[in-house]
C-alpha cells in the first residue's frame, strides 16, 4: 500500500543534440514574442482577449517537443499556445480563437494532432483517456502505442473529472500522460488554497500511477521528463503524471488585474528566474549557442510574430451560415429551416 509506483526505464535516453537544444531555444523565443505581442494586440483592439502563458514557455515547449506527431495526440486547455507552436500548429489558426473568430480555433485538429482549444477547466482530460484507451483497443503492440498528452492546471486538478480520468486511466492502463502546469495560481486563488496536500503529483500514487514533479522552468528537464513518460506509456505500462512547477508571470487573462490578489514583490520572489533568460545563459555557458544565434532567434521570432499578426488582422469573420452547417454531420430539416429564416432576415439588414 505504500510502495510508490515508479516509471519504467527509458528506451531512448539519448541526450538532446546541440541542434535540438538550439531549436528549443528558438521555439521558446518564438513563443515569448508571440505571447507578449498578443497582449499588446489586445490593448490595440486587434483581439478582444488573450490568456498569456508568460513564464510557462519552458514547460510548454519542453513537453510539446517530446510529442511524436505520427502517433500521439495532445489535449490542450486555453493556455497551451507554447505547446501548439512547439508542435508546429498553424498559429494564425490557433490565435483566431482569441480574435473571437471560432471557438476552438481554425487549425485542423486531426492533422495537427492537437485537439481544439478547450475552455472548460478539466473538460478534455477524460477525452485523453478515451483516446488513449482507443489506442489499446486498436491492438497496436506495446512499444508502438500512440500516447495522449493532456494538459491542465493546478486549479483544474480540483475538478472531479480529473479524478475520474486518473482512475479510469489507471484501471485501464491507458497510455496517457497527465501534464500539470502548476503555475501557482487559478485566477486569484493560490495553489495552497486549491491543492490540498500541496502537490498534484503526490495524488498519483493513490491510483498506482507513477509521477514526477519537475522544474517546469527548465526546458531540458521538462523535455526529458515528458520523453520518459511517453516511453512508459507507449510501452503499455499505463499512465504517468508529470507536475511541472512553474509560475504564471502575467495576468490570468487580459481581463484580469493581478494587483488585486498579489503584489509585484510576491511576483518577483515567487516567479524565480525567467525560463527563457535562464536557458539563454545555459546555452551560452555550455557553448551550445553564441550571442549571434540568440539575436537571430529573436529576430526570427519577431518576423514570425509579425506574420501571424498580419494573418490575424487579415482574418475576416466566418460566414454566419457556418453556425448552422457545422452543428451536425447530417443536418436536420428543423435546422435547415432556421438557417433559411436567418438568411432571409439577415439579407434585409
Amino acid at each position, binding site marked *: 500500500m505504500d510502495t510508490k509506483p515508479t516509471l519504467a526505464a527509458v528506451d531512448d535516453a539519448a541526450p538532446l543534440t546541440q541542434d535540438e537544444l538550439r531549436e528549443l531555444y528558438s521555439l521558446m523565443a518564438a513563443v515569448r514574442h508571440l505571447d507578449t505581442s498578443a497582449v499588446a494586440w489586445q490593448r490595440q483592439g486587434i483581439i478582444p482577449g488573450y490568456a498569456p502563458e508568460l513564464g510557462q514557455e519552458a514547460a510548454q515547449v519542453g513537453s510539446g517537443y517530446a510529442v511524436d506527431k505520427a502517433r500521439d*495526440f495532445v489535449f490542450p486547455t486555453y493556455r497551451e499556445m507554447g505547446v501548439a507552436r512547439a508542435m508546429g500548429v498553424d498559429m494564425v489558426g490557433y490565435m483566431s480563437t482569441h480574435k473571437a473568430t*471560432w*471557438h*476552438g480555433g*481554425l487549425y*485542423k*485538429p*486531426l492533422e495537427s494532432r492537437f*485537439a*481544439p482549444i478547450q475552455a*472548460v477547466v478539466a*473538460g*478534455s*482530460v*477524460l*477525452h*485523453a*483517456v*478515451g*483516446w*488513449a*484507451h*482507443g*489506442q489499446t*483497443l*486498436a491492438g497496436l503492440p506495446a512499444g508502438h502505442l500512440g500516447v*495522449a498528452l493532456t494538459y491542465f492546471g493546478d486549479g483544474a486538478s480540483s475538478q*472531479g*473529472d480529473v479524478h*475520474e*480520468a486518473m*482512475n*479510469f486511466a489507471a*484501471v485501464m492502463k491507458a497510455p496517457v500522460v497527465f501534464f500539470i502546469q502548476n503555475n501557482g495560481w487559478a485566477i486569484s486563488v493560490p495553489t495552497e488554497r486549491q491543492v490540498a496536500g500541496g502537490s498534484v503529483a503526490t495524488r498519483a500514487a493513490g491510483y498506482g500511477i507513477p509521477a514526477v514533479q519537475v522544474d517546469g522552468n527548465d526546458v531540458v528537464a521538462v523535455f526529458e521528463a515528458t520523453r520518459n513518460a511517453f516511453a512508459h506509456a507507449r510501452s503499455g505500462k499505463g499512465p504517468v503524471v508529470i507536475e511541472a512547477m512553474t509560475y504564471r508571470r502575467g495576468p490570468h487573462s487580459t481581463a484580469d488585474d493581478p494587483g488585486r490578489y498579489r503584489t509585484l514583490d510576491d511576483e518577483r520572489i515567487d516567479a524565480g528566474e525567467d525560463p527563457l533568460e535562464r536557458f539563454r545563459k545555459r546555452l551560452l555557458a555550455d557553448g551550445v549557442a553564441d550571442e549571434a544565434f540568440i539575436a537571430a532567434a529573436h529576430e526570427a521570432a519577431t518576423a514570425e510574430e509579425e506574420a501571424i499578426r498580419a494573418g490575424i488582422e487579415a482574418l475576416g469573420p466566418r460566414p454566419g451560415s*457556418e453556425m448552422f452547417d*457545422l*452543428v*451536425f*454531420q*447530417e443536418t*436536420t*430539416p*428543423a*435546422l435547415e429551416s432556421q438557417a433559411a429564416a436567418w438568411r432571409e432576415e439577415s439579407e434585409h439588414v
Partner: protein
Amino acid sequence: MSETITATRETTAAGEAPVQQLSMQQALNRALDEILAANPRTVVFGEDCGRLGGVFRITDGLQAKHGEGRVFDTPLAESGILGMSVGLAMAGFHPIPEVQFDGFAYPAINQIVCQIARMNYRSRGTLPMPITLRVPSFGGIRAPEHHGESLEALFAHVPGLKVVSPSDPHDAYHLLTYAASRPDPVIFMEPKSRYWQKGPVTFASETPDAGTAYAGAAPWAGLTGARVVREGRHVTLVAWGAMVARCLQVAELAAEDGIDVEVLDLRWLKPIDAPALVASVGKTRRAVVVHEAPLTSGLGAEVAQLITQGCFDTLKAPVERVTGFDVPYPSGDLEDEYLPNIDRILFGIQRVLEYRRG
C-alpha cells in the same frame, strides 16, 4: 417524413420480411449484437454492461460473444463514461455507452452538453461524435429515487444532440440500429417500463446499407420521423416512450364513447417531426400532448407550440398538456398519482372536445 403504421404492423410487413415476437429488451440486445458484428469500430460500455450484461440485461451475452475489448465495464462514474466516449470518438471509434438510469445522466451533463454536443461544431466537422448514448428512461416501475426521470426536454434543448425514444420492440430494434449507424450523437431514451413487453419485430431481408438509411429504404423508411400508431378523426394524442401504449389504451376506451382518437408516436424528440404534427392535427383539429416529465418547460410546450404555429387557423381548442406535475418524481406509492393516467388523459381529451370559444 412520417410513416403511417397502424396497429396492424405485423400483417403489413409479414409478407415481405421475417417477423419475430420479441420483448424490447430482446430487440435492443439483438440490435447491439448485430451492430457490434457489423461495425468493428463500435464499442459498448458502462456500469455493469460487461459481465452482468446490464441491470436490464440489454447487453446480455455481448461481452462473451464480442470480447472484453468491445464490451466492457467501466468504473462507477458517468462523467468518466461520457468523457471517455468523446476521446474514443476522436480516435475513430463509435461508442455506444450506457448510463445505468436516467437520473444518473446528470453527473455527465457537462460532458454531454459542452463536449459531445459541440465537438463536431468546435472542430468544424473534423471530429464527429458518432456516439449513441443509451439511457433507460422514464418511470412506472416503482423504483428508488432518481430511477424514473424524463430528461427529454433537457436533451432536446441542447444544440448538437439528436434525441429519440422508441415505444415498441420493432422501433427499438430499428431506431437503435439506425442511431448507431449515424455520424452524429444520439441520445437513445429507452422506456424501461416497456422492456419486457413483447411485440412483433420485422427484420430486413438483407442488412441495409448505413448510407441508404437516411434516404429511406424499407424497413428503415420513416425512421427519421414520427409515426401514426392509430388513425383517428376527432383528436390527436401526441406521446413518446411508455406513454404511447397508455394513449393507445385511452383510444380504445374513447372509441367506446364514439370518440375516434389518433395516436402519434413522436419518436424523435429532436429534431421534432413538425410536418407530422401539423398533418395529424390539421385533420383532427384538436390535440393533447402527453408526457411523464413535469409540465413546466417540458417538451409538451414545444410540441404544443409547433402545433399551434402550424394549425392556428384550424385548431378548435388550445392544445392540452397532460403531464407529470412540477414535483420531484415520487416514490412508488405515489407514482400512479404522478404519471398521466387514463383518466387524466381522458379529461384532457374532454377539455379539447368541449372547448367553446368564449
